[in-house]
């Protein structure tokens, strides 16, 4: 567990003299870890090199000991300066030189103190509150004229991701995207995490929620029962989805079909294509999914389980939506804000069978949240990783198979 960190600068002919190697070895031998940042190597033998080294240690005392040990080798603590702030010129507009965030843990230096940036997320700005010496990540659309926005890179430091203490699939921190790799151990590791998180969540510990973002293929492929069981058994606390997942889930409940296909017989039923429209219409008539469940119209399935178990559901609309269902948020910025508001407290994210929802959710997640992306199409986990969510473990497999295997690992007998 990292308790203390400091950035030092080492300059001179540090490569061929092995001074850099000596300093890095010393840090490791003393029990610290390091991240090499901004290494510039001299282009000629005469030209000096320079390395910025972020040192992390489990205690301030260990950090002090490490700093003392490497100081004689020229590793000097970098002169620290407060971050520079500029007032936003207008509502919804950052200052020209605004600092753009990553989704890694970030600190800014304010009034001589390094403070954590709250609600970190990629591709946002940082707004500071000088009164209470606080800082948080802020979407461009939410900035108000005059807000103090961190500008430039001075006084901002980003910490690399720590290797989790658990020795499981997440500790490798590399996206595994291949249909040819065995899945069993990944699913077993995810199940183990979910078991632990549920137990902790029940005792009221923070950051133990499991978020599932899913697409309608979960229903088409036959994963509905397994997901319903996972929700019923208390393994999922937050659900992100679109109109379709909910519509097909309730279509299955009302008509036994998913997009017109009989779920048990596997055949298109006469006029089955109308079923999802009639389902949506029915729920709209009732007024809400919650009311439909509470009135007993919808008794079983994913949405019913969510309502019954108090799962927080955020439904984001798209242009293709029929209806949509009453709870669907059709303003995409409002939907993004609602999803963002549901992220705090999440300790594991499962992104299943939906390109749009997976990437959208990935963009909102800090890198510190272990994430699994399951899709039968390898392009989806790849796309997620390419858009910066490098912490996500990619699993190329059918959504229903994944959910069934996962539920069975956790005790489902279906």
């Amino acid at each position, binding site marked *: 567990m990292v308790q203390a960190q400091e950035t030092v600068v080492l300059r001179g*002919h540090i490569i061929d003299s092995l001074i850099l190697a000596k300093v890095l070895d010393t840090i490791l031998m003393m029990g610290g870890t390091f991240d090499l940042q901004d290494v510039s190597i001299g282009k000629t033998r005469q030209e000096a090199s320079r390395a910025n080294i972020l040192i992390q240690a489990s205690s301030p005392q260990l950090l002090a000991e490490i700093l003392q040990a490497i100081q004689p*080798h020229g590793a000097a603590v970098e002169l620290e300066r407060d971050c520079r702030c500029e007032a936003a010129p207008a509502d919804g507009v950052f200052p020209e030189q605004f600092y753009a965030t990553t989704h890694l843990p970030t600190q800014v230096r304010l009034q001589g103190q390094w403070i954590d940036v709250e609600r970190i997320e990629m591709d946002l700005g940082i707004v500071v509150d000088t009164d209470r010496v606080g800082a948080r990540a802020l979407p461009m659309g939410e900035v108000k004229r005059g807000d103090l926005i961190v500008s430039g890179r001075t006084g901002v430091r980003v910490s690399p991701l720590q290797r989790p203490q658990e020795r499981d699939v997440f500790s490798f921190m590399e996206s595994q995207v291949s249909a040819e790799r065995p899945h069993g151990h990944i699913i077993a590791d995810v199940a183990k995490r979910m078991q632990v998180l549920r137990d902790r969540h029940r005792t009221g510990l923070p950051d133990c929620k499991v978020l599932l973002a899913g697409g309608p293929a979960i229903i088409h492929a036959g994963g509905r029962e397994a997901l319903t069981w996972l929700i019923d058994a208390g393994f999922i606390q937050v659900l992100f989805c679109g109109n379709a997942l909910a519509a097909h889930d309730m279509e299955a409940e009302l008509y036994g079909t998913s997009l017109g296909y009989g779920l048990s017989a596997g055949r298109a039923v006469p006029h089955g294509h109308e079923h999802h429209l009639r389902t949506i219409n029915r729920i709209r008539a009732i007024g809400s999914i919650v009311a439909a469940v509470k009135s007993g119209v919808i008794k079983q399935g994913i949405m019913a389980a969510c309502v019954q178990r108090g799962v927080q559901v955020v439904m984001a609309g798209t242009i293709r939506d029929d209806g949509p269902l009453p709870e669907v948020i059709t303003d995409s910025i409002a939907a993004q804000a609602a999803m963002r508001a549901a992220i705090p407290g999440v300790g594991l994210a499962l992104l299943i069978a939906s390109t749009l929802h997976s990437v959208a959710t990935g963009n909102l997640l800090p890198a510190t949240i272990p994430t699994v992306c399951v899709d039968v199409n390898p392009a989806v986990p790849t796309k997620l990783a390419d858009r910066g969510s490098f912490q996500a473990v990619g699993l190329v497999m059918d959504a229903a198979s994944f959910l069934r295997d996962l539920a069975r690992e956790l005790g489902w007998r279906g």
Partner: protein
Amino acid sequence: MSRLLVCPPDYFRIDYEINPWMHRSNVVNPDQAVLQWHRLMQVLEEELGVVLERMKPVAGLPDLVFTANAGVVVGRRAVPSRFRYPERQREEAHFEGWFHDHGYEVVTLDEGMYFEGAGDLLGFPNCWFGGYRQRSDIRAFPILSEIYGKEILPLELMDSRFYHLDTCFCPLSGGDLLYYPPAFDRYGQAAIMERIGPKQRLPVLEHEALKFACNAVCVGKRVILPAGCPDTMALLESRGYQPYPVPLDEFMKSGGSAKCLTLALD
């Protein structure tokens, strides 16, 4: 023709103890010291053909005789030393004054940026090495590198008996290196081996290293070293060097020998 800065040992004695060799109880024989110093000068002038610049000794500054620590001089540019110990800091003004008086462009380091001159900065035409940890501060080397436009590889000095780089490391003409490897850690030894080929490394044995065999002055193929180092002399001869042993044991009482008593001026 080589020019060396030297300082007669008129006031040389052990007044304080700032390295493991110095013991106030180990009294210097002044007559013997003067004789040894003059013998060294004679060999330098007559055998090696160097030109000597003598600076004026100063009462109360016993170590002014060790001019290797005056600073470092390349071309017409001199960087005077910043001594770590207050006992020798009083020498700084005299060395700096000498450089000024003799028309050198003097570049000074910030106060507190310890750097003990050619005692800790030695090298070959294209690659210099800097000794640090005992006396000089490693942070001085990037600054010196900029001043002189040279690569300087820092080497940590691990053994307090070899407290300056010139006590255990002596670049010879032709790219050979006379040195005592255990004075460096494995990083330093690896860095040296990376730059100096196996055939050009002349490792000195411990018992002669402790007689400061590496504290030698090399001009062309001639090498002056302290007397009593037959193995090192044989090693030098085997590589085509001509060794000139000079008894300098009075100066060893202070932890210095041939190289410490001279500063190369160009």
